[in-house]
């Protein structure tokens, strides 16, 4: 890639020396007599922007204007005004949008994938292309996520593509693959939640709940220090605390983890929530808490778990104190 870049550098002729631009009067930036935060622009940057300002002011929607926007974007892919003007030109010229897709990939390769403008532009193009873009959008985001598995824009784009264009069939499998590579990848967990709640093929959260609880508790058992599946597990029962407490798999994974590591903050914190939602203490729980000096008789479970959390999770001690202070007296 670097050699082709060098070639481009070599052949670049200043706009002022290009015959096709001889009729255009460049417009300098109106920075005033005493500019602040002024940037020491390179000559190339300044000149390109001056010509851009001229075509933008004249609202010139021509092929050469389209090419000029590419030059500006090459110098600063964050210039939202240029991207916007480029869309106006593309519409006026009724340009081939498949070519535009290629252009975006070039820009994205060179600049950065962490840029609102590129992704917004991509969404605009894909929306115009419609369902024929389904595969290309899923492949493009997959490529970006290969390089940076948590790229926020790429995930948003992928979710938009799935909802607007389709292509849900293999998405759960894709999430599974990503989690197999890195079970700590919270973006993949989030995508998994998105799929099981939104996919038209899976029947929704209710239908998926049991198998997801099993997938999730497995992940917890293998890596109790991984916060992602703990949050996911709560998410599976969002808005339905009663069912949450009554699913034996939930308390079981909590107890199992605490049997091996009674300091596990995520397990203790879930246990606290369960107690608050009405979970009835079991002999297993009594046994674990007794190792902390819990006698059961006149002590309250939730209160005691808060005290343990204050000790084992000192970073959040103030939060656990607050939770303890907020416990209503009827909770056991």
């Amino acid at each position, binding site marked *: 890639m670097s050699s082709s870049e060098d070639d481009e550098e070599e052949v670049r002729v200043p706009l002022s020396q290009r015959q096709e631009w001889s009729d255009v009067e460049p417009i300098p930036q109106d920075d005033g007599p005493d500019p602040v935060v002024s940037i020491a622009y390179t000559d190339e940057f300044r000149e390109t922007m001056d010509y851009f300002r001229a075509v933008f002011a004249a609202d010139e929607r021509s092929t050469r204007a389209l090419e000029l926007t590419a030059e500006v974007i090459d*110098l600063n892919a964050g210039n939202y005004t240029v991207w916007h003007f480029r869309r106006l030109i593309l519409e006026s010229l009724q340009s081939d949008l498949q070519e535009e897709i290629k252009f975006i990939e070039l820009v994205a390769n060179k600049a950065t994938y962490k840029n609102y403008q590129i992704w917004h532009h991509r969404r605009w193009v894909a929306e115009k292309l419609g369902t024929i873009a389904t595969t290309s959008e899923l492949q493009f985001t997959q490529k970006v996520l290969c390089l940076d598995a948590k790229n926020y824009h790429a995930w948003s784009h992928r979710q938009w593509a799935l909802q607007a264009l389709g292509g849900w069939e293999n998405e759960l499998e894709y999430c599974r693959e990503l989690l197999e590579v890195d079970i700590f990848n919270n*973006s993949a967990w989030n995508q998994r939640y998105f799929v099981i709640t939104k996919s038209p093929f899976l029947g929704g959260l209710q239908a998926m709940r049991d198998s997801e609880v099993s997938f999730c508790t497995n992940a917890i058992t293998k890596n109790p220090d991984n916060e992602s599946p703990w949050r996911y597990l709560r998410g599976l029962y*969002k808005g339905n605390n009663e069912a949450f407490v009554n699913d034996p798999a939930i308390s079981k994974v909590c107890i199992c983890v605490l049997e091996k*590591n009674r300091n596990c903050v995520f397990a203790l914190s879930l246990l606290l929530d369960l107690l608050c939602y009405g979970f009835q203490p079991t002999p297993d729980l009594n046994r674990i808490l007794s*190792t902390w000096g819990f006698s059961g008789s006149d*002590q309250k479970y939730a209160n005691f778990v808060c005290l343990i959390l204050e000790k084992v999770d000192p970073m*959040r001690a*103030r939060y656990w104190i607050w939770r303890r*202070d907020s416990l209503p007296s009827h*909770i056991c």
Partner: protein
Amino acid sequence: MDFPSATATQQQQLHVERRVEHIFEALVNVTPGGQSVILELWRDKHIDYLLQGFRRLAPSYCVLDANRSWLCYWILNSIALLGQSIDADHGQHTVDFLCRCQDPNGGYGGGPGQMPHLATTYAAVNSLVTIGGQTALASVNREKMLQFLLRMKDPSGGFRMHDAGEMDVRGCYTAIAVASMLKILVPSLVHNVANYIVSCQTYEGGIAGEPGAEAHGGYTFCGLATLVLINEAHRLDLPSLLDWVVFRQGRVEGGFQGRTNKLVDGCYSFWQGGVFPLFQRLTDLVQQQFSMSYIKSDQWDANSKQECITESAKSVIEENNAQQLHAIETGFIDEESSSTVTAENIFPAIDCFRKTSLHIETVEEDPAGRSRSMNDNMPGVGDSGLSFLDKDIKCGPLFNTHALQGYILLCSQVLDGGLRDKPGKSRDHYHTCYCLSGLSTAQYSWSCRTGTPPSPSAVLGPYTNLLDPVHPLYNVVLERYYDANRYFSNL
């Protein structure tokens, strides 16, 4: 110790943790006097860096050419946080410059002649408020601004960032914050905003940029602050939001990560840390939601009578808790050894204050302070930005304020001035602004009234580290906010 089987996330996390531990070791190995030196905020260096950027930026900043209004805000807010201000000439130059960024049809672009954009509009208005004075404040065309904001409004309730631009929670925050600051917050702007933001709260508890996306620190602050500004914070699931955000503070680093299982980054000192001052003013609401989510007393077979706890009963409970805590501590074996140099070990969250109480120390009322804001609060005009400051703060912060200050001072400061994401990264104006905003937030978290100076124990390092307080919703220095609020109220 190496972890060959560790995933990419674990390896990156361990790498950062080791680096941070190494820096913290320097702190524990010196005398208390030396600690005070190590924990110093390098004010002069930061000011030099900021002023230099204010005057001139290197060619590498060409890629930020559409963010010059932001650069103004990041630099001016940082300088203001450091208790200084630019001189009158420079203030005037900034007003002139921002006027050139103002679109004839309302709103501000990232530079002269650029399209108006909601984010750069927010940055420009906050810059002008920070400069202060009649010329700066009068330079905003409020009528056109309202038209611009209404043009950006989407039927879904959200806002597009610019004409036909992208829509996300940033749009809601920047539009509503600007409208609220300028007193042009009309019902048609507010319509459906809460629905949009609520639809972005995820199963994790935090708020995402768009519905379905991942909970994220930046969007979480933006979403919550917006809802406070329009009096609809109760629409969110606040307990789950709180539970998510408290877990974003790293046990080893002390700083905040932006998302679950991501690396610490200094800028989240404000985006995540800034959520806590909001919660301190919403505690009644949070407690109410908490108890709603708990099992009801009538669903509870035994013990269903709700007793009223007397003072003497309370002290018995406290006594019991102290005994149980003692038992837990005696039986506590820390497998990972509490001697490791982590933020949670060297910056205890509670020991420097009262052991088990969350009560915030009350200080003498400053009648002038209270009346200043009360007088401006015109009856009948709902100004949440102002009235929020007068809300009672009933409890201390629910995060470790010292650990956050420790991360910012030790890991984010750059020797030549400016602040950064994390060790190994370069400084920039964005991180300088949000690290300092987060530092200020942490320092003032122990004030029982907005903006009253905290006790020395609340400030990590020498007391001269104390920054100016910011408005917790707009992130502009509080004094300048009051001036602007008075100005726009009297128009």
